[in-house]
Structure formats: C-alpha cells, structure tokens
C-alpha cells in the first residue's frame, strides 16, 4: 500500500500543515510519498525529505506550478496517481481547491477535513460546523482525503533523509491564468475571524495598561485583541473589541482571557473557542470552569514571562 501526500508550501518553505498531514498519511498504513509541486522548489523538497515517515519525495518543478493553481497541480498528481491507493492533502486552500478534481477524475468520493484515521478506509470528520462528528467508511478502492491539520501533531524530523526524485509535469496550455497575489499585511487580524484572540478585562486597570499589556503580545502572536464588557464600560478598550453576548461572538483556535472573571455574558461570546486559556488573580473566578488551561496569578507578571517563553 502506498499513500501519496501533496505537500503544502509557499515555494520557499514547507508549511507546518505538511508535517501534520504526514502524521495522518502515515496512519493510513503503507509507505508515504510526498509530492512537492511548484517552481524552483529544491529547498522545499529537501525540507520535505527530512521528515520522518517519508518514503520518497517526488518533485514536480515547472513554471505552471508556481502558484499552486488547481488545473496543473491536479493534472500533475493524476499523471502519477497510478499506483497509489490513498491520496492525501492537508485541508489548506490549495488542498481543498485541488483534491476534488482528482477524486472526480478517478471516479471516487473524497473524504474532506478528516480529523481521525480509524482504519485505512474509515475516517472521522466534522459536519455541521463541528456540531457533529461522522465516521465514514469508503468502498472506493482509491481513497482521496483532505486532512484537518489541527487534529494531528506534526511529524518530527527523521534519521535519514528520504530519496528525492523528479517527476514529469503535463505540458499543455492551462486555462486559468495567475494574475497577482496579495499577501495579508501584518495588521491585527479581524477579531471575528482571527485564529488567536487575546482578551482583557477590567483588571487591566486603565486604557494605557490595556494597550501596553495586550498590544505587544498580540503583535507577537499575530492575534486579534478583544475585551470584556467591563473593560469596555470602564473605557479601557473601544466597544468594537467587546467579546460577549452583546458584543462579538468568536471561536478562535486559541482564546486567552487576561483578568476576565468569566461572567455568563462573556462566555457566550467565546465558549466555542477550541482552546481557552484563563489568567486571573482570583482562583475562584468562573472562567476557570471552562478554561482548558488555567494559570492563577498576577497577569502583569505572567504576560512578560509568557512572551519570554515564546522566544
């Protein structure tokens, strides 16, 4: 059994998503071949070869692949899909864009956003925006899956680098044409959609302290800043930062509540966050009841220590 994994990269660096998808790919059983498709991607291929669990790295290098467009990437994979019984990609924008084209051409169903490999043909995945989890078994001989990377830990570095082989890229005129790419400036991400949110409560004490304590940390983590209603009412933060029942409802991967007690109105705005961290001086604060990680202490001491530990 062999699995083909589509690597995710920006032409220069292999992304963390690839290492995580590799863990999933390895769980499907059998050898894993990693396909790096792009242009001038030698460095990416070398990084890929260093990951543990990779049998071979296949390099498809061509100008047509320089921007990860679906037609050429899918065509490249299909050209070499022949012997693989499982084809995997991380559920990144590229993976989601490309993989279904392959599944349709192979006349098989795709299983999207897999969160657990139960067996080589059986997978768990979220449905209804994560409000339910379904376990499906496929009857197709070739399995095509995208993998939700946050559900898998990244594969470590291996002992010996894998073999790197060049593979051909179909030569034809592609219809879609890349025009330009606009990379997001590192302004603070939007509160409603940020992956990390750092929120402050009334304990911050003043608008200046609120800004000076949360600002640098948010910058460091590329996080959005939120506030409790009490902090907004006290004038420490503008009201468009308010997280809560009468403010914004957020569900980031990581929500760090600094000096927030955890009134029910605030919880309503963030209780669906994947991981909740609470830092508060009061060990009986209600927020500790829903926090995944609780740290009791003075936030003005803890925040600098946190930044130091981030390195």
């Amino acid at each position: 059994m062999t699995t083909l994994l589509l690597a995710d990269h920006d032409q220069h660096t292999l992304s963390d998503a690839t290492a995580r998808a590799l863990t999933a790919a390895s769980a499907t059983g059998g050898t894993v071949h990693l396909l790096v498709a792009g242009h001038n991607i030698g460095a990416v291929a070398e990084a890929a070869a260093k990951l543990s669990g990779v049998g071979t790295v296949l390099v498809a290098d061509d100008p047509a692949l320089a921007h990860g467009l679906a037609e050429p990437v899918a065509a490249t994979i299909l050209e070499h899909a022949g012997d693989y019984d499982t084809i995997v990609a991380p559920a990144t924008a590229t993976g989601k864009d490309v993989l279904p084209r392959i599944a349709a051409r192979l006349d098989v169903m795709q299983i999207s956003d897999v969160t657990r490999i139960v067996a080589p043909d059986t997978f768990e995945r979220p449905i209804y925006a994560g409000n339910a989890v379904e376990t499906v078994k496929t009857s197709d001989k070739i399995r095509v899956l995208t993998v939700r990377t946050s559900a898998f830990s990244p594969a470590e570095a291996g002992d010996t680098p894998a073999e790197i082989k060049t593979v051909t890229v179909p030569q034809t005129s592609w219809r879609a044409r890349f025009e330009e790419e606009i990379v997001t400036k590192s302004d603070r991400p939007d509160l409603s959609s940020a992956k990390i949110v750092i929120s402050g409560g009334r304990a911050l004490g003043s608008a200046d302290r609120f800004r000076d304590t949360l600002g640098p940390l948010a910058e460091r983590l590329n996080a959005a800043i939120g506030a409790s209603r009490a902090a907004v009412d006290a004038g420490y933060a503008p009201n468009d930062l308010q997280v809560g029942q009468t403010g914004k409802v957020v569900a980031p991967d990581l929500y760090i509540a600094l000096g927030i007690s955890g009134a029910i109105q605030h919880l309503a705005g963030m209780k669906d966050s994947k991981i909740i961290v609470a830092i508060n001086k009061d060990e009986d604060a209600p927020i500790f009841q829903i926090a995944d990680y609780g740290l009791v202490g003075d936030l003005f001491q803890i925040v600098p220590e946190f930044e130091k530990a981030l390195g």
Partner: protein
Amino acid sequence: MPSYKAPVEDMMFLLRDVFRSDAVFAEMPAQTDTDCDTIESVLEEAGRFCSEILYPLNMTGDIEGCRLENGKVITPKGFAEAYKAFSEAGWGGLSASPDYGGQGLPRTVQILVDEMLSASNLSFGLFPGLTRGACETIEAHATEDLKNLYLPKMIAGIWTGAMALTESNAGSDLGLLKTSAKPRDDGSFTVTGTKIFISSGDHDMAENVIHLVLARLPDAPAGTKGISLFLCPKFLVSEEGTPGAPNNISVGALEHKMGIHAQPTCVMNYDGCQGWLVGAPHRGLAAMFTMMNAERLFVGVQGLGVADASYQTATTYARERLQGRTPGATVTSPIIDHPDVRRMLLSMRAFTEAGRALTLFTALEMDREKFHPDPEIRRAATGLVALLTPVIKAALTDFGFEATVLGQQVLGGHGYIREWGQEQFVRDARIAMIYEGTNGIQAQDLVLRKLTLDDGQPVVRLFGLIRKTLDEAEPVPALASVRHAVQNALTHLENITKRLTSGDLSSAEERNAAAVDYLRLFALTCFGWLWLRMAHAQTEAGTSENGTQPAGKLATAQFFADRILPQTASLAAQIGAGNASVMAPDAGQF
C-alpha cells in the same frame, strides 16, 4: 444578544392542518393564487426582513426615541432607511388593491406579517399599519379623484398615513370633539383644530403624511352623528401628484410615553389647513368604523407579537441560565427545569398559540366577508367577524401584556434591566390595551351590541362551531381530558350569555359591570376550543406533508385545559354574583 425568529412553522401548521386555507381560498375568485406554498414563501421572506432589519432597531429605537427639532420630527437612527427598504420591497402594499399598485393578498396573510412586524419592532410596525388603515378608509369612502391621487403613493410607501381622531376632551367619547371644517368655494374645506395622541403624526421617513381628520361641519348635528372625515395632506399635492406647499399642519409637541418611544405620538395643530371630505357629510365615524374590525385585529396582534418575542427570549434564557437544583439533580439545573418557570413559559405559549389561531380564524372570516361570491356566506362571516374582533382586540392585548410580565419575571433581575429587552416589551405592550378603543370599551361593545347583533345569530353560530369541534374530538381518547375541560367552559359561557342577553343580568347596568369579566370568559373559552382543534389536527396530521411537526400541541393544550381554563368557572361566578356590590358605594366614598 436576544433575537426574534418569525414563527412561520406554527403559522403554516394553522393554515395547512387546522384551517385548511387552500380549500378556503380556492372558493374566492380573487384569491385562487393564494396557496400555502405561496403564503409560506411570503412569510419566510417577511420573517427574514423583520429579524434582520427591524429587530436590531427595536432596542436602539426605544433608547433613542423621537425628537422634535424646529417643528420637524426626527425618528431614531436607522428607521428612515429601514422604512425605505420596507417600502421598496413592496411590503407596504401586501394587502392593498392591485388597482392602485398593491399585491392584493388577503387579510389572513397581512395579519401574519403584522404579527411579525409587531414582534420585531412595535413602533416601526405602526407606520405601515396606520398607512394601511388610512388607505383602506380612503379606498372604501373617498371619491375616485382622491383615490387616484393618494392611494398609489401611499400603497408604495412614498407617503404615509395618520389618523387624527382624539382631542384633549374627546377620547373614548368622540362625540365631544371640536375640530371644525368650513366649506370653501372649490369643494374643499378649511379644517381647524388640535388633535392629541396622533401616532406617526409627523416624521422624517417619507415626503408626505396624509392625515385623516375627524371634524364637524357648520350645520352638523350634535354628538357622534355630526362628525365628518377629511383628508388633509401635510404638503398640498399637485394634480401630477407632487407634494408642494405646506398645508398649515404642524406638530405642537411630542408626548413622552411609557413605551413605543420610537413612535412619534404628536399633538397636531390643523391651523386652517385644506382638507377634502371622505365619505358622506356627518358620516365620518361610520366611515372610520368600517375599518374598525381590521384595526382591532391589527392591535390584537400587536399584543400577540410582543408576547411571542418575549416568550422567545424567555425560553432561550431559561435553557441556559443555571440556578438551583431540581429535586434529584446532582449539578446546577437550568431554570427551565424548575416547575414554576415551566409554568410561566407554558402560560405564555398557551396564550400566544391560541391567540394566533383565533386571529387566523377571524382573518379567514374577514376574507370570506370580502371575497366570497356567495352572499349567505359573506353575511355569516360578517356576523362572526363583528362578534370576534372586540374579543381579539381586548383579549390578545390583555393576555399579551400579562405574558410580557411573565417573560420579564422568568429573567429575574435581568428582566428588569434593559439589556435583555424584556422590560421594553412590557412597556410597549401596555398601550395596546388602551388605544384603538380601550379594552373596557371593547368589552362593552361585545356585551351591549355584539351579543344581540343579528338576533344573536353570530353567537349561536360560534357556539355551534365549538360544539362541532367537541363532537369531532369525541372518538379520540388522547383528547378526552381537554375535551371535557372545554365542554365545561362552554357550559359556563352559554349560561352566562343567556343570563346577560335575556335573563337576570340583562339590564344595562348589569351588562356594563359584567363586560370585562365576560370578555375574558369568552376569550378563554375560544382559546380552549382552538386548543382542542389544534391538538386534534396534530394527532391527525402526525407529520404534516412538508415534514414539519409543531411541537407539543397536545401537551400545551393539556396544560391550558388543566391550569388555565378552570378560570372560566370563577369568571362565571364573578359575573353571576351581579353588579350590586360594584355600584353600592357612591362616588363620594372614593
């Protein structure tokens, strides 16, 4: 943030499974396109508009209120835009005649949309509601010229309407009004007077306001028989239909009220403005009264709507709020598990769903009255409508207000503060018990006029319909207990009705004193009847064709039958005791 979701499933259950409206409308040539699928599309879209655009303005509008600046009324932020979106989407013309640009949909559909408007933003809903009332009056009584000049723009929402009846000395007794109208050479009139409590009297949402003003002609007989109706536009309108010069109508003041703050309740000064007669001279009240039933239905669903909005918030809160432990619980319970909270929520729902059913029953009769080709059916419908509209107006607003108080109580302290919105529903609901004819006046209308209307035929017919439901429910064991309770209520109602119309309570004084209690007894019995019908329809339908299953009709019917309907017994006893003790103390003893 509390939110409002229009109860479209419940509305469609009533139309499809209880009242079978497709068959009803199929008999009306003008309404053959009004099938349930069409109605559902309309209600879904109206519901979306109400939830997404009107509801978010409800609390902000309440807090900001209207203000008077340099003689102009400014409505709260967002209202003018919402009104424009509402009108441009054609909602204002839903039931208006296609002859003047309306969609011609029946009262049944209009009243369901009115419920949603009232629930999501009572103050806003009054603008199109009053405009529609004005349009219906103009269409029924004005000359062709006036209709052609005013109706198209009012129906399109470009102009709004206002009804100017009340004066400082003339509220319940309009016969005392003093506003005068003097004829001019060109057939129009000069109208002079001051009116108070005029809803939507002025605003910044549309380019003209069309006032319907009650006034006396020079040779008018005294009292209510001497009142005429005049159309007075805020800005005079050219023949081409463009508003021009101001017409000497001004806002004297804005009232500061308990609720409906986003509604400008105006003192209006008509300082010799130009007006046109609508209907025959001295027949102004009669002209307004032809719209009375539609207006009563509208005010009734105002009570129903805010009660439902309050119920939705109360239920959401009760499911999430953890306080105390129910017997046997090992962790803190959500308050919805506590019997007292359950009782409050069920009481609210027992009222709202029955109130909606009674409204729809009456609206369908109003549609028969207007659209059915058979004159006998129209006559019978007219009688039922006349009988039921005072009941709907008074009962839905009384019970509606009580429901908002329960909805506030469920939230405890959070019900008293502004944030959750429950206290606003209480304040907003209160007015519906007062305006458009106080509930006391409605009760008097019921007892003094409607019971004996048409030789009492409508009453007999209604009681016959209730008995029919009882008979049809007899073979169903699951309905036995509800049926029994409804039977008891009907017996009380029939006995008291007899005593009031032809027995020992039939004097004017007895009937006056009994009126309010009687109306409540009447309403409760009607609710019981409809609960039995709904429970029966649900057990029969199981799952209705489109797969929806309205939750727990039988369970709520049982609650109503067990815990609320017995009030009919005490009401009967109250009325039966006679009025001696009411009038025994003389005025000096207060």
